[in-house]
């Protein structure tokens, strides 16, 4: 039985095809303005690349911020449930999930593959991918280089602002004081790690913790969070697809 999961995220849209117990293929692209168009394009491209016809896909489940806009989906489920199903499929021993996405960050407590509790950050960019995106811009480095720069830092700069706009100003003033890019990058990453770390500790996460979402691709971020939590984090081969994967698994029904 082939099912599909669509994760209509605020920044990126992910589509994934699942057959019985394995991932057939997936696609990740920019959401832009319209959730539905992005999802449809991603899904069509995915079908073509996997050489699967639409009719073969028996059920489509949507998740993500725009999940209710995906009119061609049979059902929508929350990201919390979706990530938990997706991550538990990849790492059955997982007891906690940290998801840092473009728009929000979440911490999920997992018990036997099910959501036991969860916490999402407040309605603010602090502790999210957006924070890194804006501050990387102030630092004039591509966001993908931020992690590598941070790992090369000897003395991370102290970034005290939680507010994305104020942090941007802080970065500019640190640059003016001659602090190196490496140290500023490390400071930015440490500031998110601290914030997300507090959420994780509040939820009692200790070990067997997975790190997912776009920000999990950032090696510097992973290292900073690991230091913060004192445990090695599980990062999937593609940390952005666990939501879509979970939705596709949910679409398989109760097995």
């Amino acid at each position: 039985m082939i099912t599909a999961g669509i994760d209509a995220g605020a920044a990126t849209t992910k589509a994934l095809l699942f057959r019985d117990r394995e991932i057939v293929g997936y696609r990740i692209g920019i959401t832009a303005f319209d959730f539905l168009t992005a999802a449809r394009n991603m899904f069509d491209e995915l079908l073509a690349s996997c050489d699967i016809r639409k009719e073969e896909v028996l059920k489509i489940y949507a998740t993500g911020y725009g999940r209710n806009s995906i009119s061609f989906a049979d059902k929508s489920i929350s990201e919390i449930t979706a990530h938990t199903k997706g991550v538990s499929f990849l790492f059955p021993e997982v007891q906690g999930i940290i998801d840092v996405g473009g728009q929000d960050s979440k911490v999920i407590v997992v018990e036997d593959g099910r959501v036991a509790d969860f916490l999402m950050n407040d309605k603010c960019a602090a502790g999210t991918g957006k924070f890194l995106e804006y501050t990387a811009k102030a630092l004039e480095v591509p966001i993908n280089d931020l992690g590598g720069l941070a790992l090369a830092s000897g003395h991370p700069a102290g970034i005290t602002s939680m507010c994305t706009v104020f942090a941007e100003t802080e970065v500019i003033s640190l640059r003016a004081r001659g602090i190196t890019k490496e140290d500023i990058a490390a400071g930015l990453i440490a500031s998110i790690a601290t914030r997300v770390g507090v959420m994780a500790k509040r939820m009692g996460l200790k070990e067997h913790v997975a790190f997912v979402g776009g920000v999990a691709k950032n090696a510097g971020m992973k290292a900073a969070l690991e230091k913060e939590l004192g445990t090695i984090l599980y990062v999937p081969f593609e940390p952005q697809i666990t939501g879509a994967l979970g939705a596709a698994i949910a679409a398989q029904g109760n097995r």
Partner: protein
Amino acid sequence: MSSSLQSLDIFKNSYEFRIAQLKEEREHGIKVIGTLCLYVPDEIIFAAGADRIVLCGGKADTIPVAEQSLPRNICPLIKSSFGAVVDASCGGNLACAHVPLVDVVVAEATCDGKKKMYEILPDYLPTYVLDLPQKPGSPEALNYFLSELRKFGKFMEGLTGTVVSNDALKREIRSANETKRLLHRFFGMRRRDPPPIRGSDVLRVMQKQFFLSPDQFRQGVRELCDEMEHVTPEARTGPRIMISGCPMAAGNTKVPDIIEQKGGVIVVEESCTGTRSFWDFVDEDKDPWTALAERYLEIPCACMTPNDRRIDRIVDLAKQYDVDGVVYYTLQFCHAYNIERLRVQRALKKEKIPLLAIESDYGDSDTEQIGIRVDAFLEMIA
């Protein structure tokens, strides 16, 4: 559940009637007291021959004008209430017609935000502040509150020229107890599965409790209860939910609306617009002043310390109403309820009852974010 309960119309259409009633009373020299808290005993106000009306604001419209005077980062209920008083046009909203009918505000020393707002309020409306002990468990606290209630009684006598006699107090205590008994009947019916009424409908009724006259309120609730006896509720759409936390003043139904839209079934509210107002009765056999002081100090508000009574009450209600989960609701910047969440959460955890914390104001900007959390919570406890 049924949204077609006809008796709900009694409450929906009551605003104009009540305004006309208050205007007429004022023409006959009856004083109208504005209140903003359960700690101010209705019984004393009515025994002094005055009427009362709740001034707690639940609408966002009056907040911008309040923010011209008050800090932005305080609780929306305080800002909304204050804004309705200072701006006669009510932010272009005609729902504040009752405010100019108030002769005196009887405020109370509860949370910091309200206390300090009440220091500014006299510039707009005469204001009397009832003091409260903060550690309610001791005999000294009771004596102090008793003296405060007697002082308040004297104030009311001075205002109305009517002596607050023990007989009048006892009469009003019996009347208020009757309301409480009726509300126990009303809420008791929600223990059924599925419940015969939607939580958001109950909230809209409870928001009128201190707005309408006791007679009119009781009549409405009585008719509603009678009607509920005969309805066949539709099948339950999702888990049974208790809401616990800050009051939801008239105009504010955001979180219950989201919960129901997502399929959650709200069966009880532990709040000032829920059980807190009516759960405990006033002893009719005791000296009425002492009985009032005892009962009112039992109100489990987060401004009291320690507030074990509230934590026990929540766990008890969760069991009585067989809830699958608790949505802990705090108004933004309400430190007392926000901090108390941890103790509530720990107590519920022991009973294996899940909790979702939501902090929100009167704006719509976080509707989606709340929706995601509620979706996830309902999936988690389904």
